[in-house]
């Protein structure tokens, strides 16, 4: 029976696409997009409430919607999509059937039931505890249960992926080492396993506590273990999105990594050091030593940051190399000017790389410096930072690859190509605004997760600087722009899946979505003797200068704060 697994050969890529894999990729991706739509709408409501002139929702609904926003986009949208990416990187790229398809379906159903259950719990109004659900604040039992079911489902999906790798190895469906994109996916899946384990370790006792079966949960210990899930899961995103960057560069430009060794080594740094980042959330907590904080918050010696900085060079390097080999060799940036900026997969990827590095990466390092955290903890600077990583970085990368997944896996031609062409720019612009203005307001001391910065109902009064009100207005406008970008994405993708023209067998010639000939045009890049890459050196230098400058500016701010010891 196993031998009879049906597959088709993709006319665009030549990869074998098995029926079960295709169905599971589709269903996980579709459900992911649904959660993006729902969670994105909640996000817009949050931003419109925090826009002082609009102040849309009443307080109770605001906190409810904010909880739902976090769960739907940070967890459900991203993890469903990641499962689709893993099945692609395992089964499709290695030309092998998916291991244990029944388990893959069970994983999907568990995740869906969990996600819906958590949403119901939040919408019922008894679980407005924020995604972090810090004890001793208590949510309804089925809130925790929903999250646990979702996590167990995700764990099962990871093992289906690992099983697929084993089958590919045994049946020798590929030669030598796995492709880099699959390697990155493996890294994501390994991180996911210990991330989900952390989640289980803390959420199961919390569930029992919500039933009064456990007397007490220590609030500092809760944060330590919860963030072993909460922060490490962002590193799953990180590994997945970097894989997607390599994947898009390969498909659209035929780019190959400058050096397999360097790129894979950088991925390995993630596995070893990323889970220390739970410390980022404990820097102003009582009773934890500074030695512990300094070591963990810096991922040992910033070794995971080193991994990201390496990818930050090797992605533009791979693109420059591929472009120069294709003949776009003019000057320092001719390759960049001649890049396919009208292709939403490429532009989305490029924006994701740049915005992630600058808005998410640099600010993350600053936020995670032990003492600098004192002037930023729990202010709007924090969501400003992570909208740079998770929205401008991860979500934009996932959107970008969707523009390739839909024609290749769903076999449909994108409807409204013009809308698709502008979508990454509009979304990127909106998210840039969201991230910058929230960080600006945070620097002025505005609190995150807060309904009323004017303190109208408070028994005392306190005046926030007027500039902060302006920032929150601009944040609202940016959120509207990002939402328009988000709606364009949903309309194009859902419209294409439902009504798009079927992609024919010869479309790979008449309307190619991946570079004709693929990697064959760019053989032998990488390692010594490759082209000079002055453009990449310039881009990386600008990034590094911005990093150093911004880092020192923040220490200057800190030095002006009241002395503390």
């Amino acid at each position, binding site marked *: 029976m196993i031998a009879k697994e049906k597959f088709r050969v993709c006319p665009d890529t030549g990869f074998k696409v098995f029926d079960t894999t295709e169905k599971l990729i589709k269903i996980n991706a579709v459900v992911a997009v649904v959660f993006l739509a729902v969670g994105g709408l909640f996000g817009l409501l949050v931003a419109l409430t925090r826009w002082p002139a609009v102040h849309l929702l009443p*307080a109770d609904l605001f*906190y409810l919607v904010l909880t739902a926003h976090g769960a739907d986009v940070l967890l459900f949208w991203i993890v469903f999509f990641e499962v689709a990416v893993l099945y692609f990187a395992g089964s499709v*790229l290695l030309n092998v059937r998916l291991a244990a398809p029944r388990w893959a379906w069970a994983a999907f159903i568990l995740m869906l039931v969990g996600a819906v259950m958590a949403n119901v719990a939040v919408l019922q109004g008894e679980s*407005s505890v924020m995604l972090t659900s*810090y004890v*001793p*604040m208590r949510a309804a039992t089925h809130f925790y249960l929903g999250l646990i079911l979702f996590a167990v489902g995700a764990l099962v999906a990871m093992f289906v992926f690992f099983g697929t790798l084993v089958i590919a190895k045994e049946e020798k469906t590929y030669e030598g*080492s796995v*492709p880099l994109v699959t390697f990155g996916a493996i890294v994501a899946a390994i991180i996911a396993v210990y991330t989900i384990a952390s989640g289980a370790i803390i959420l199961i006792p919390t569930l029992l506590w919500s039933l009064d079966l456990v007397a007490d949960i220590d*609030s500092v210990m809760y944060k330590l273990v919860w963030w072993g899930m909460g922060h490490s899961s962002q590193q799953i995103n990180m590994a997945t999105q970097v894989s997607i960057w*390599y994947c898009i560069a390969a498909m659209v430009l*035929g*780019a190959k990594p*400058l*050096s*397999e*060794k*360097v790129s894979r080594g950088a991925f390995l740094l993630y596995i070893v050091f990323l889970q220390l980042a739970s410390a980022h959330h404990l820097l*102003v*907590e*009582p*009773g934890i030593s*500074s030695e512990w904080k*300094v070591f963990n918050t810096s991922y040992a010696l*910033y070794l995971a940051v*080193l991994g990201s*900085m*390496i990818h930050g*060079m090797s992605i533009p*390097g*791979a693109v420059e190399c591929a472009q120069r080999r294709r003949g776009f060799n003019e000057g320092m940036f001719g390759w960049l000017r001649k890049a396919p900026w009208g292709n939403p997969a490429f532009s989305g990827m490029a924006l994701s790389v740049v915005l992630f590095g600058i808005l998410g990466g640099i600010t993350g*390092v600053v936020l995670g410096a032990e*003492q600098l955290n*004192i*002037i*930023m*903890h*729990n*202010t709007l600077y924090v969501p400003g930072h992570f909208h740079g990583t998770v929205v401008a970085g991860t979500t934009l990368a996932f959107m970008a690859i969707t523009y390739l997944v839909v024609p290749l896996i769903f076999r449909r031609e994108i409807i409204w190509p013009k809308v698709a062409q502008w979508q990454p720019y509009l979304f990127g612009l909106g998210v840039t605004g969201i991230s910058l203005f929230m960080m600006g307001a945070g620097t002025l*001391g505005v*609190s995150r*997760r*807060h309904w009323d910065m004017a*303190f109208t109902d*408070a028994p*005392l009064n306190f005046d*926030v600087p007027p500039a902060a009100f302006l920032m929150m207005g601009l944040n609202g406008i940016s959120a509207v722009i990002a939402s328009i970008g988000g709606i364009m994405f949903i309309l194009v993708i859902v419209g294409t899946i439902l009504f798009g023209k079927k992609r024919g067998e010869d479309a790979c010639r008449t309307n190619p979505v991946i570079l004709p000939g*693929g990697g064959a045009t*760019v053989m032998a890049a990488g*390692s*010594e003797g*490759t082209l000079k890459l002055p453009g*990449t050196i310039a881009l990386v230098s600008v990034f*590094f200068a911005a990093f*150093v400058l911004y880092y020192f500016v923040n220490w200057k701010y*800190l030095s002006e704060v*009241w*002395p*503390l*010891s």
Partner: protein
Amino acid sequence: MALTPPENPHWWREPLHRMEIGWITIAFLWGLFMFGVMVYWHINGEQNLSNEAYRVNPDVYGEKVEAFAEKYTVRTEGKTEIPVVKPPPGSDIYMLGRLWEWWPILELQKDQTYRLHLSSMDWQHGFSLQPTNINLQVHPKYEMVVTLKPTKSGEFGVVCNEFCGIGHHTMLGKIYVVDK
């Protein structure tokens, strides 16, 4: 390419590009430097947390804060008549967080040092002193101690910046800093 197995089966033996070696070296050294800055700030910087903390029963902590307030109250303020407490410079001073207030109001002298004790009576709260922008996480059952020295006089708000339920946005406290 990235979608197919590496063309060179011995990819780990490929020599590195000069640009790659250069960038990895710079990034690694920058990491070491940033690590060093945090250590340096503990030695020479003025803004560090002591991490001093004690386990405490919320009721016991509440009694301590009340005794402290009773001793040094100089006036009351606001609709709820919150005491304004003026402790002597150099002393241990206390504030508690509860749903939904920071209690009591403190009046401190500029350029004097105080040992500030913080704890929560119920859920987690965020002590966010504005506009100077000092932010500390306050847990129930943990009494944290921070030594601080106000360097500016004026009126400072203590915003709660950890979500603590439906009244979270009304949770506000105050610290006055007066010239001697």
